[in-house]
């Protein structure tokens, strides 16, 4: 009562006192605080679904994180076997067992003689004694179904479950009961008391384990949680190096520790990182942004991995710890292939700046990959993470989950301030669109697309920046050229709305040059011809003028002659008339 009143006055961000954290990554988020404190939780699932691990893990975490002692009652497997199995998780059970953890072996021998009715009184007495001794707050009854089956009578089973529940409630122990169930269909037919158990407890969690096209997929699902809201979706989980890791619910992922996210991002908002290719940095206005998610898409062989390698090398040169995960090739192959284009990663691998992981042969669900990537990035303390190609997450059996996984991948990298570079393979079939199978292109900050341009019997690599948030980037397609000197970008030749590359670009350039030369020659010829004509005309003008002058002088002479003649004629008439003696008229 007191506890509840207290809760109402608290702001929603403070931890819910009615709950106790399991310390299992993701699970506390889904349940918004963990298991109901002082109450009972049923963990059900088929054999091998991870019930025992989860129950033990929450007990171990209770002891480690909350300093709450716990008791583990093992009905099916011996505690020795459970401890051996849990060794790989590194929980230091031996240390905890000294004061904070107690295992109670409660296996019944199959040949145990029975006569009439019996109950769990002995176990409860033992737990009670131990609980007082070590001041235990938590208890696990692992595989309660095994012991209930001995009762051989549904009514007796129900009675015992009821009694156990009452007993636990009276002692205020936070309890986990695990119980095996068959497959979902036959669940209620074969175990009529499971429904009763679900009804009794305050919280029920179902664990599933199935193979989807050969890929192991584990998920858990909170079926009920009295007095609390919870994520009702199925949440995938893996049993990793440290135990269970549950993929947190989406809505939770966005809302974690907002203050932390803000500071970590704002300081990095303006920092630019080299892509490892000088011209590309220029195209991007200085490089990628720190903490950005970069996507490089393209068909097989368009040098996606090379660009990824260039980025890795640049990061290592800056002294940043980098994680490179290749789903395509072995680590040696990656190094060899990149060395051929003068990207030398081996030295950084040796210096342990670069962690090069080949996940080529690892088959697993997208969830498993995501968790492994996170785990690797964490242990390597990576600032830059490269996944080549991220489309490997969407391999057979993963289609449904791959998108949400990719989304969470980006979400995670951003909130942890990691610069993430993913390549994504495009199939020829979808070549008409530049969309990626995972649709992460919409989430990425920078999207670089590599393409082949086939023309005149040649394939050339073209690079274009489709988008780059917060950057004034070049919109031109550049030709990407690989040589033993490294990666370079060349201006693609644009002519008449066509992008030309390779030999074609060279040819076109040559052709235009010679055309220009020819034009010049022609013009020169014409000019010379014009000169000639002009000269000719000038000559003609001169001769015509001479002619004109000649004609003029001729005319002058004639005029003179004519007037002389007239004059002479008149003289002769006078002489004649004088001769004839004509009278003067």
């Amino acid at each position, binding site marked *: 009562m007191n506890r509840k009143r207290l809760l109402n006055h608290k702001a929603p961000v403070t931890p819910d006192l009615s709950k106790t954290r399991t310390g299992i990554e993701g699970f506390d988020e889904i349940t918004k605080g963990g298991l109901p404190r002082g109450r009972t939780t049923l963990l059900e699932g088929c054999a091998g679904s991870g019930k025992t691990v989860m129950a033990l893990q929450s007990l171990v975490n209770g002891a480690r994180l909350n300093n709450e002692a716990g008791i583990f009652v093992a009905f099916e497997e011996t505690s020795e076997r459970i401890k051996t199995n849990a060794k790989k998780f590194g929980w230091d059970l031996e240390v905890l067992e000294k004061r904070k953890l107690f295992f*109670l072996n409660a296996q*019944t021998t199959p040949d145990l003689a029975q006569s*009439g009715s019996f109950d769990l*009184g002995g176990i409860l007495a033992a737990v009670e*004694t131990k609980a007082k001794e070590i001041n235990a707050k938590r208890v696990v009854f692992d595989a309660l179904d095994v012991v209930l089956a*001995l009762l051989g009578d549904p009514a007796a089973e129900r009675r015992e479950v009821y009694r156990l529940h009452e007993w636990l409630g009276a002692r205020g122990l936070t309890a986990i009961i695990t119980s095996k169930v068959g497959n979902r269909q036959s669940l209620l037919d074969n175990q009529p008391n499971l429904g009763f158990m679900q009804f009794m407890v305050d919280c029920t969690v179902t664990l599933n384990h199935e193979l989807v096209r050969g890929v192991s997929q584990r998920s858990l699902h909170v079926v009920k949680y009295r007095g609390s809201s919870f994520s009702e979706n199925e949440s995938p989980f893996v049993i990793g190096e440290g135990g269970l890791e549950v993929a947190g619910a989406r809505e939770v992922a966005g809302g974690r520790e907002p203050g932390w996210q803000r500071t970590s991002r704002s300081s990095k908002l303006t920092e630019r990182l080299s892509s490892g290719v000088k011209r590309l940095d220029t195209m991007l206005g200085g490089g990628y942004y720190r903490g950005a998610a970069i996507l490089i898409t393209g068909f097989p062989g368009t040098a996606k991995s090379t660009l990824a390698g260039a980025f890795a090398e640049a990061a290592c040169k800056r002294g940043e710890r980098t994680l490179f995960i290749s789903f395509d090739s072995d680590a040696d192959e990656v190094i060899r292939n990149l060395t051929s284009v003068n990207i030398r990663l081996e030295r950084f691998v040796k210096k342990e700046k670069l962690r090069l992981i080949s996940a080529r042969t690892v088959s697993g669900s997208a969830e498993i990959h995501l968790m492994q990537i996170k785990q690797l990035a964490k242990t390597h303390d990576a600032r830059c993470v490269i996944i080549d190609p991220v489309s490997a997450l969407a391999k057979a059996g993963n289609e449904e989950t791959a998108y949400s996984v990719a989304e969470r991948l980006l979400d995670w990298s951003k909130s942890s301030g990691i610069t993430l570079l993913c390549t994504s393979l495009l199939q020829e079939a979808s070549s008409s669109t530049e969309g990626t199978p995972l649709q992460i292109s919409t989430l990425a900050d920078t999207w670089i697309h590599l393409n082949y341009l086939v023309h005149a019997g040649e394939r050339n690599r073209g690079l274009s920046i489709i988008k780059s948030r917060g950057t004034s980037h070049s919109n031109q397609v550049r030709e990407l050229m690989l040589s033993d000197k490294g990666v370079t970008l060349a201006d693609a030749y644009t002519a008449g709305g066509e992008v030309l590359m390779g030999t074609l670009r060279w040819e076109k350039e040559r052709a235009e040059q010679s055309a220009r030369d020819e034009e010049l020659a022609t013009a020169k010829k014409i000019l010379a011809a014009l000169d000639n004509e002009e000269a000719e005309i000038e000559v003609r003008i001169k001769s015509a003028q001479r002619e004109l002058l000649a004609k003029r002088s001729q005319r002058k002479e004639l005029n003179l002659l004519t007037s002389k003649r007239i004059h002479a004629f008149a003289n002769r008439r006078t002489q004649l008339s004088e001769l004839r003696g004509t009278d003067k008229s």
Partner: protein
Amino acid sequence: MSKTAPFRFRLYVAGDAANSLQAITNLRALCREHLAERHEIEIIDVFREPKRAMAEGVLLTPMLVRVCPEPPLKIIGDLSESRPFMQILE
């Protein structure tokens, strides 16, 4: 009841649970009938002496342990069926 009784039993009970009380009654009746003066019974309440119960590995109650003769044999339940009891007498 002498210390040298050929049959010595320990009956672990859980407080005053109905099947535990029934087990006490049934055990006494069976012993009276079949073992007369040749037996010895010790009744242990697991809630009062949990350490003994744990040492004995008593998880389900009521539980009868035939301590003597060796080897120890166990029967769980209220002993309402006499056959398992008769078997450990042989």
